[in-house]
């Protein structure tokens, strides 16, 4: 049963990211010029302005940097509240905003190890797989 979620940003570049997710792969844009990993998806490199990227596979491993829990309804009831978000530093150095899977915010310690999983979701653009993180 797919969870309903607020809308993704779709379009050139964004679509490729979600296509990789649909194959349960976390891949981000690696600049063909400077090698910098870009996230969120961009048309030109955040670090050097170059416009060519390769879709680089991430290890899927990371550490929790921060968290928050939404009590206020910002999405017209699409998500049951309260729900939690975490900020994960991937092994590759990128900060990735996501949701905890199978653990509570009370369990979180700074630097706790987590690994990516993919969860069936849907929004106005159809069904998709959302990268979320579980404890290692």
């Amino acid at each position: 049963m797919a969870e309903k979620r607020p809308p993704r940003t779709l379009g050139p570049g964004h679509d490729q990211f979600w296509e990789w997710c649909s194959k349960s792969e976390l891949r981000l844009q690696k600049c063909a010029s400077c090698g910098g990993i870009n996230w969120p998806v961009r048309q030109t490199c955040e670090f050097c302005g170059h416009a060519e990227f390769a879709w680089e596979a991430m290890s899927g491993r990371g550490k929790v940097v921060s968290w928050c829990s939404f009590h206020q309804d910002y999405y017209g009831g699409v998500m049951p509240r309260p729900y939690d978000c975490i900020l994960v530093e991937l092994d590759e150095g990128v900060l990735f905003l996501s949701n905890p899977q199978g653990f509570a915010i009370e369990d979180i310690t700074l630097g706790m190890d987590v690994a990516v999983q993919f969860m069936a979701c849907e929004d106005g653009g159809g069904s998709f797989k959302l990268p979320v993180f579980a404890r290692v």
Partner: protein
Amino acid sequence: MAEYTPLVMPPSAREFSRKASIVGLGESDYQADYRAQRKPPEGYEPPTTEGLATLAFERALADSGLTRGDIDGLTGSFTYGGPPPAELASLLGVKPRWNISNGNIMAGPLPVVCAAIAEGKADCVAMIYAVNSRTAGRVFGGATHSGSNDPGEGYGTPPSYYYYHPWGWSSQAAHWAMIFAHYSMKYGVREEDLGAVSQQVRNHASRNPNAVMQTPFTIEEYMASRYIVRPLHLLDICLVNDGAVCLIVRRADMARDMAKVPVDVTGWGEAKIKSSKLDVMVRQQLRPQLEEAGGQAFAMAGMSQADIGHFEGYDAGSIHLINQIEGYGFARQGEGVAFCQAGEMDLTGRLPSNTEGGNLSGSYMHGWSQVAETVRQLRGEAGTRQVAGLQYAMTSLAQTDQAHPILYARGEK
């Protein structure tokens, strides 16, 4: 964000220091307007940007002792739209030789005016700020926040405001929540500790008849207030209200024989996050930008942290005020909340801060009401919340991606 007019900051140059002084101040009735909106009396008509701007201007002009004929410069700053320059001049009944649209939030408008005065574009400038966020039903989060890295609709909106919708992440409050949750884990500061910040600001507001929220609260009441985005409570998040501020700024050498004590603008700085916003914001607590911009301002003014007797920070979220107090060097990293708990931000502490009630309890004028309070404090007009013997003060606009400090001195009459 798309409404924001680009503004070119003048450099933090010594030749611009002390060339202009604030000689007139006017604000709208924040408290009365907020109450009227919450409980509209019969025949209530919500305030307009134009009406609020006119009121603040008339009050500033009366406060300065000047006449319309003395005003030869005019700038308009409006966060969610307002009259263009010629229309504003006509509305206020002035004939300025220099008249510009001047950004919106307090991230540059005052330095722009001080530099223009130093360069001879005008001698006496009325700066107008007005906003009707509450009347306009402005919301600060949700799926309507859209943006793009590509030129076109929504261009320039930071991705953190729209890109993480599928994970349910939105709103300004969530930014502050992520900042504090990290800070809390790193430094062992608890929610009930952070409560002291909003409590201190509210205690100040209880001495300000024009503050929107004036009733003091206990830490127990703070903890019982609902979460907006945990770990932050309702009382950690700023107000949304309508209002206007007018500052009349005059050439410093023409400001020595005025009705009120002049407030000289001595320095300013600016630093923005260029990339990796989440990292700088959450892990570095905006520290590099605060240090850089603060350093520019202090060097320009020939002043140091030890000179500052009153601070007005941008408390859109309680933790962000602490980020600024640490980032500018008033407290050590991780010790800002303890600094507040020890009473150092109170009227008799080392750094009386946000004495009018800030954005949390006073008024949310996007940094302009902080400048207004600074003028009152340096003049010695702050009544029961006056900081004794004040000579130098600092304001700071700081958002999740930029820092804009300004320094001031009580001028000689």
